[in-house]
């Protein structure tokens, strides 16, 4: 096994692993804040949950980027072609 494919597999693994850390923490904080807000103001829960969904999608995009990078490394690596 040559070093380039080994390095790209390791790169893909680390990209997904560390790329999931930040968004996980951020989503936890966002959901906690939204729960807090709904508990204080249940009548505003519609607006809060709608904004929460959009915000969660934004946060999740960071992790999705890492996944796409990992897939590029594994399946469409220009160095291994």
């Amino acid at each position, binding site marked *: 096994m040559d070093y380039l494919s080994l390095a790209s597999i390791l790169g893909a693994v680390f990209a997904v692993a560390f790329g999931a850390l930040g968004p996980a923490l951020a989503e936890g904080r966002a959901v906690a804040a939204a729960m807090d807000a709904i508990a204080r103001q249940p009548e505003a829960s519609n607006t809060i949950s709608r904004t929460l969904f959009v915000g969660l*999608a934004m946060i*999740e995009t960071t992790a999705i980027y890492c*996944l*796409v990078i990992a897939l590029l490394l594994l399946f469409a690596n220009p160095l291994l072609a």
Partner: protein
Amino acid sequence: MKSPLESLPLFHIGPVPITQAVVTTWAIMALLVIGAFLLTRKLDRVPGKRQAALELMVSTLDIQIRETTGARPVPYRGFIGTLFLFILAANWSSLVPGLEPPTAQLETDAALAMLVFLSVIWFGVRDRGVQGYLKSFAAPNPVMIPLNILESVTRTFSMFVRLFGNVMSGVFIIGIVASLAGLLVPIPLMALELLTGLVQAYIFAVLAMVFIAAAVEHDAHHLTNRAPEGLVPPGEEPESSPTEKDS
């Protein structure tokens, strides 16, 4: 393992290869168009059950548009509603055995995001004129011009990668689990995938609406401030001010 980034052609029409995603997209388009035509053929002033259900869908769409952006929903209803329904149908087309959702392919999502990019320009130019739209790139001050241009490209790109990544990763994970453990194990994941498909369709539509509203923002403020002059019937007043969202 098959790479999720490339798609294999099913057959060729002349020199053009036709993939499975294209065929599914055509089927969904035909279904939506024919369904919409048949359902709206006989509209009545006193709605029956079918028309009441349709009106409920349209008014929900209007309320969502009005609450997220504060803009008047009439000019955007068609585009946003079509985007939402198409992406929803595409995401849920994986319910049909053997089909892969077309949004799990890069090309479909790139085309959808390109539509949003062009429609932002179209609505912006239509509401402000070419000069006014170009001037909006220099919004706080001219130093921001390169950043604003970059932003309008990268947000389109992130929309398309977001939809692609979410749907494709669902398909990928279900494939891996189904290859590991056979019969009933992937079902909870499939249910989760249905939820993801709904949320992603909603988010795509909302983000498209937010981007369009940002391009015509000046006008939206203007109209909502003057709405009581008979443009909006009483009781339908938007109370939420336009939200300042950005990606």
